[in-house]
């Protein structure tokens, strides 16, 4: 019966309109079959999905409309007419955020769709919008899970980088950096000539303009192939390569200036003198020449705005980049050169200049079997600075004596009382020259179809020469010293050889990729530091042979590392993905028999949007992926030779004999710290993949912690390295949203947003209470905590701070650590970034905001007692004066008990920790590209002029200087404004 009706219906319909069976094939622009595309008959629910060769069969009436859609491609409609064989070509959707997303995972690449791990990418475009000299400054806030903190606003200063929090209690927490596959270091190679900017950051040698992309590898799936180096994440930096096509010459120049932003106002002389006088009155003491030279011996009406004088200048910034690139289909090249110069906000001619060249050559053989890519870059970075950050001297008494005496020499005293003349430090010049050569060769040869041999060869050489002079003229005559100087020469050489075999094949829906490789690496550092004194003349300070006394200290280390690694990846119909990675590592940083360890990970992903039931029920969801990974990585960042039992020469000989002293306590038995990482991720793409949302949860647990366990000095040393049964856990949620909101010929509008909610927790620590960490950590709390006593504010009667003891009673002399009742977490508890970019015809505008939520030390931390001989932020004006006053700050005083209450007890109280959250308008870039016909007049392909700004506005409740550097004695990050022009021929 059913059969009859069906047959009849078919016959009837065939009679009404010509229903026919259509066979077709869906292909992409290159004619490659597209499987999994959905073919729907419009205004019906009838649909089918293309097969592995893109083929499909559907019954339709002529005149009906077929809608063909495939994620990543623009939808296409085809009218059914008489053709029974259709070949339908789909065009890649320009707006899709997934199409171009090749993901570099170091030893291999994948696409964002097929990636089983967690990788964030920062592209050259985002870097180019920021007028910063250091690459690390350009990635702050740009990727979830990545926290970047600048140590100072001076050029050459270091950045601390953490991926997903602090894993290790004591060992290095920095990620592994690879530039084109060659390990690079973020640790200064300086042996210890510390200049105003701290230790020289090696990243200051990298020209941000040479960088094509930066990939942040986070979970076990992405990092376990790096074994022991992957525990703290991996930062892959890829430099610019040539592309085939016409020769392109790109010139880009910008210039601008930077100034300090947030630095609290300090008391002027009137307020300062009042503070000092009031303090002595409160103390019932008479100021005399040695308790108060500022009141007794110095002019109490003179006013110097030290902040303005010492750090109020503007830093000039100039950057020029030129590159030429091009090539044919077989050979491409890129040759770039750049110059960057920054001066400082200090008075005087101090600057940082960097010159660099970058060259890349890529060649493919005609038969495509052989491929070679050679990259080399060289840079020289010259930093002419001073030894001290003058920011620490803005607290000088505002009525301090004149800087120079009547003869033009530095002044050191007035009225019989000496003062530390900050301009003396301008004479203590610290010069550094850092050279960096990186070179890398990748060779690939196709032995058989699907079977490649590959080798990655790299070499990195860094040299850092520093000299730091202390002319006699800059030294307080109190000590009657002649000039002295320090010179250091540091060399770092590393090489890496990584032969690999790649194999791939496909059987039906299954694709297999196998990679096996080994890695040999060596890092050698040779440094010496020469200390020279008793110079006969300040003019000879750069010549150690002119010194009466010279002592040399040298440090030489050799680090070797080897590994075998592999990867097996299975892809079933681009729907089910499995990725297995493993590595066996050996490191010279461990004693015999402790050197080797195994690491590995499993990653899997399910692209559920490929499932028919999703396509049918959630047609809006163009892309959906669930992924997860679990694995083990390790950490050996403890320094070299720590397992040896040795004696070291003492740098100060005794009666001509160089003494020997024990280097450290001896422990040959420690081994790898291990880090177990778990990750779950959900990736969703909407509206033709124009909106992409990624949500990840991670849980990393670090065990076998390598701790320089604190020991009482009665053991001879303050600590020893050993594996400790402690577990540190980092969990967190990461969210990233990218949206191509508008994408038309004239107008494009993109936005991106990322947010990380990290949580760090000390899960286990055996015998914590009896360890040296008892006062520092609590089980169940983050590592970033600090334990404090509770400050109850200013006592209205005595005018000094009061506290509570462990029983909750008010006391003026709490005891440490017994009365630590407050725990404050100083690590960020939420951070992220928001960026948006609009391009309308020739106009472009992009903005980027950084957001950090955290607690931090405020200005009161280590602040001298208000009333003592140091200037204060105007916050202290709201002080206690008379019994009964309710004041925020205690009375001005120079002596105990007020001094102890402020500088000793309150400094260990919750009164010095407050909200240091901030939203920073980190970057803005406005550009205009001249119409082509105008550019054509100077025979240029394009001309673009732009304005850029960095660190523009900071919104914060923070009491103190910059909420990022959180220090009153370090130069905060500068606000930088630049203008530039880019011409491409």
């Amino acid at each position, binding site marked *: 019966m059913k059969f009859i009706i069906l047959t009849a219906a078919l016959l009837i319909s065939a009679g009404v309109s010509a229903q026919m069976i259509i066979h077709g094939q869906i292909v992409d622009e290159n004619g490659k079959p597209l499987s999994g595309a959905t073919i729907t008959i419009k205004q019906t629910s009838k649909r089918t999905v293309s097969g592995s060769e893109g083929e499909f069969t559907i019954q339709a009436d002529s005149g009906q409309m077929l809608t063909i859609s495939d994620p990543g491609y623009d939808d296409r409609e085809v009218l059914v007419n008489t053709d029974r064989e259709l070949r339908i070509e789909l065009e890649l959707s320009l707006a899709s955020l997934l199409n171009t997303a090749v993901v570099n995972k170091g030893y291999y690449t994948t696409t964002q769709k097929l990636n089983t791990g967690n990788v964030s990418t920062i592209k050259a475009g985002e870097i180019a919008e920021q007028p910063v000299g250091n690459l690390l400054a350009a990635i702050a806030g740009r990727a979830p899970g990545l926290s970047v903190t600048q140590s100072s606003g001076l050029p050459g200063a270091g950045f601390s980088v953490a991926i997903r929090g602090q894993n290790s209690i004591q060992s290095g927490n920095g990620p592994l950096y690879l530039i084109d596959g060659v390990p690079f270091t973020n640790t200064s190679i300086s042996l210890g000539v510390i200049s105003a900017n701290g230790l020289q950051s090696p990243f200051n040698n990298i020209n941000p303009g040479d960088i094509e992309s930066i990939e942040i590898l986070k979970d076990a799936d992405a990092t376990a192939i790096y074994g022991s180096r992957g525990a703290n994440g991996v930062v892959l930096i890829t430099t610019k390569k040539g592309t085939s096509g016409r020769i392109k010459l790109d010139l880009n120049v910008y210039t601008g200036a930077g100034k300090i932003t947030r630095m609290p106002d300090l008391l002027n002389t009137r307020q300062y003198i009042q503070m000092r006088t009031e303090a002595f009155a409160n103390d019932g003491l008479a100021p005399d*020449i040695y*308790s108060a030279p500022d009141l007794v011996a110095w002019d109490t009406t003179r006013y110097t705005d030290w902040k303005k004088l010492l750090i109020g200048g503007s830093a000039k910034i100039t950057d020029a980049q030129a590159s030429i690139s091009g090539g044919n289909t077989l050979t491409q090249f890129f040759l770039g050169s750049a110059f960057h110069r920054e001066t400082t906000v200090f008075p005087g001619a101090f600057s940082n200049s960097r010159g660099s060249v970058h060259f890349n050559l890529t060649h493919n053989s005609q038969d495509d079997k052989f491929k070679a890519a050679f990259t080399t870059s060289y840079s020289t970075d010259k930093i002419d600075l001073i030894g001290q950050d003058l920011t620490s001297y803005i607290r000088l008494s505002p009525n301090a004596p004149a800087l120079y005496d009547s003869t033009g020499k530095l002044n050191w*005293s007035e009225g*019989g009382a*000496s003062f530390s003349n900050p301009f003396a430090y301008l004479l203590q010049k610290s010069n550094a020259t850092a050279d960096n050569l990186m070179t890398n060769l990748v060779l690939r040869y196709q*032995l*058989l179809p*699907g*079977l490649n041999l590959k080798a990655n060869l790299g070499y990195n050489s860094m040299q850092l020469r520093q000299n730091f002079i202390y002319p006699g003229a800059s030294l307080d*005559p109190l*000590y*009657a010293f002649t000039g002295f100087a320090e010179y250091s020469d540091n060399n770092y050489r590393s090489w890496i050889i990584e032969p690999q*075999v790649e194999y791939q094949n496909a059987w039906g829906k299954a694709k297999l990729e*196998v990679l*096996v490789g*080994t890695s040999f690496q060596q890092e050698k550092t040779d440094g010496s530091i020469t200390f020279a*004194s*008793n110079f006969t003349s300040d003019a000879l300070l750069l010549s150690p042979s002119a010194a009466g*006394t010279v002592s040399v200290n*040298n*440090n*030489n*280390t*050799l*680090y*070797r590392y080897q590994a*075998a690694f592999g990867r097996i990846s299975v892809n079933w119909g681009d729907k089910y993905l499995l990725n297995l990675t493993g590595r066996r590592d*050996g*490191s*010279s940083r461990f004693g015999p028999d402790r*050197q080797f360890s195994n690491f590995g990970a499993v990653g899997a992903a399910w692209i559920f949007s490929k499932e028919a039931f999703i396509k049918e029920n959630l047609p809006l969801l163009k892309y959906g992926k669930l992924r997860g990974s679990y694995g083990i990585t390790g950490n050996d960042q403890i320094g*070299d030779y720590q397992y040896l*039992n*040795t004696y*070291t*020469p003492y740098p*100060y000989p*005794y*009666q001509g*004999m*160089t*003494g020997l*002293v*024990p280097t450290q*306590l001896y422990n040959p038995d420690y081994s790898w710290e291990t880090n177990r990482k778990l990750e779950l991720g959900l990736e969703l793409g909407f509206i033709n993949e124009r909106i992409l949302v990624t949500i990840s949860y991670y849980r990393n647990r670090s065990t076998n912690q390598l701790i320089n366990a604190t*020991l*009482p*000095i*009665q*053991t*001879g*040393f*303050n600590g*020893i390295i050993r594996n400790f049964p402690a577990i540190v856990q980092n969990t967190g949620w990461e969210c990233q949203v990218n949206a191509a909101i508008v994408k038309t010929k004239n107008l494009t509008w993109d936005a991106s947003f990322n947010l990380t909610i990290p949580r760090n927790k000390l899960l286990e620590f055996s015998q914590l209470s*009896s360890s040296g960490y*008892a006062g520092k950590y609590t089980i169940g709390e983050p590592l970033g905590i600090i334990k404090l006593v509770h400050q109850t504010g200013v006592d209205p009667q005595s005018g000094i701070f009061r506290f509570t003891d462990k029983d909750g009673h008010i006391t003026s002399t709490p005891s*440490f650590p017994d009365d630590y009742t407050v725990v404050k977490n100083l690590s960020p508890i939420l951070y992220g970034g928001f960026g948006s970019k609009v391009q309308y015809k020739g106009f472009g505008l992009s903005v980027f905001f950084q957001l950090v939520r955290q607690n931090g030390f405020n200005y009161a931390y280590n602040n001298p007692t208000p009333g003592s*001989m140091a200037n204060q932020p105007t916050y202290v004006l709201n002080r206690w004066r008379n019994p009964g006053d309710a004041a925020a700050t205690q009375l001005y005083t120079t002596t*105990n008990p007020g001094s102890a209450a402020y500088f*000793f007890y309150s400094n260990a109280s919750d009164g010095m920790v407050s909200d240091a959250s901030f939203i920073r308008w980190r970057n803005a870039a406005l550009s205009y590209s001249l119409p082509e016909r105008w550019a054509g007049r100077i025979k240029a392909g394009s001309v673009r002029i732009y304005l850029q700004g960095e660190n523009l506005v900071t919104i914060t409740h923070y009491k103190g200087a910059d909420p990022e550097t959180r220090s009153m004695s370090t130069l905060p990050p500068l606000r930088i404004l630049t203008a530039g022009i880019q011409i491409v021929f």
Partner: protein
Amino acid sequence: MRWNTYLYVVYSILLVAALPACKSFVEVPPPVNQLNANSVFTDDKTATAAVVGIYSDMEFSAPVSIYLTLLQGLSADELASTSYDEAFQAFADNTYKPNNPYVAAVWALYANIYQANACIQGIQKSAALTAAVKDHLLGEAQFCRAFCYFYLVNLFGNVPLVTSTDYRVNDTVSRTPVAQVYDQIITDLLSAQNLLRTDYPTEQRVRPNKWTAAALLSRVYLYTGKWSNAEAGASAVIGSGSYTLSDVSSVFLNTSNETIWQLMPVSSFFNTQEAVTFIPFVPGLVPVYPLRDGLVAAFEPGDQRKQAWTDSTTIDSQTFYYPYKYKIAGSSPLNEYHIVFRLAEQYLIRAEARMQQGKLKEAIADLNIIRARAGLAPLSLLLNAAAVTSAIAQERRIELFAEFGHRWLDLKRTNQADAVIGTLKPSTWRPEAALWPVPQAQRNANPFLTQNKGY
């Protein structure tokens, strides 16, 4: 996939996997700037260098080179402080707290004790050293250990007694009673006295000899009330014939024949830390650590030591005195070494030991030797015990001021601290301040360390 392809794959994988088999790649040689501990004590020269490393570190590091003198001088009634550093001021007021950085710095004498322990262990185990060198080095190391413990036990009371190098044992050692620490000091010094020769191993008396060990031992006997031993010890040093009292003006020169042991300066910037610390270089500047008025007034009229060993500067009609035993603040000429033991103290030790045994006349005779050198008239041989006691205290106060804290230790061991310092600093002195606090960081690191009373 063809069979050939399989072979290629297998071969390639084997090739790559075989490479890391060479395990020796990650076995690196020791660094060129360090010496394996086992080889240090197999050679006379390197073993000597290990012992010399103790003196280098003592003279370079703050505890011995300046803090023992400065901090004890501030704690007692010798020095005042005009330093802006509140942690120094705390010593002048006797209000030091467990987190005072300088208290911690002195406790770090344990680093020198570790060096000595490591040397003692290495030397005792070694069969390769020349017998004479071995004995002398062992004696020197034992002396150094005793020297450090002497100050620790006097400044902090009970202190952990550590005589080995195994941190797994030593990190939890609790505070050993004073008497037991003294027993170890005496054992070490008796042994050192036997092992050390009467001559010095090198020129200029910069490494201890037998009489150095004897000098410390007689002081230890004095402090522990073993009067006859103290007298005999001091007599042995005095009678050795190796030492004579120098002229007042040349006591602190490196050529002084009064010196029993001196540390040679290792810094290229100055002779002694004392000179740098005490002497203001620009006339018109207030000394950072001026002498207290009471000490200045305690010099008898005509005492040549006041002229030779103190100096003053006058600012706004206020005169500040400061220690001037060491006069060369710069690095050249290198004429002043850091004197740790000198003969004068041995006379004073003997005088006190004799007085305690009722030998008043002999005691006064010893005092008069010191007084005569200072240009002072002799004391009457008829003084009674109380007068001799106070004369000894007075003479020690003047002779040994601003030298390794003699005054502070004298006030404490003669139970005068409360009376003298309590009078001088009535608002801040507490009897518990006689012992410095155990550093808080050390108590955090070793929970078995108790705190002294009152902290």
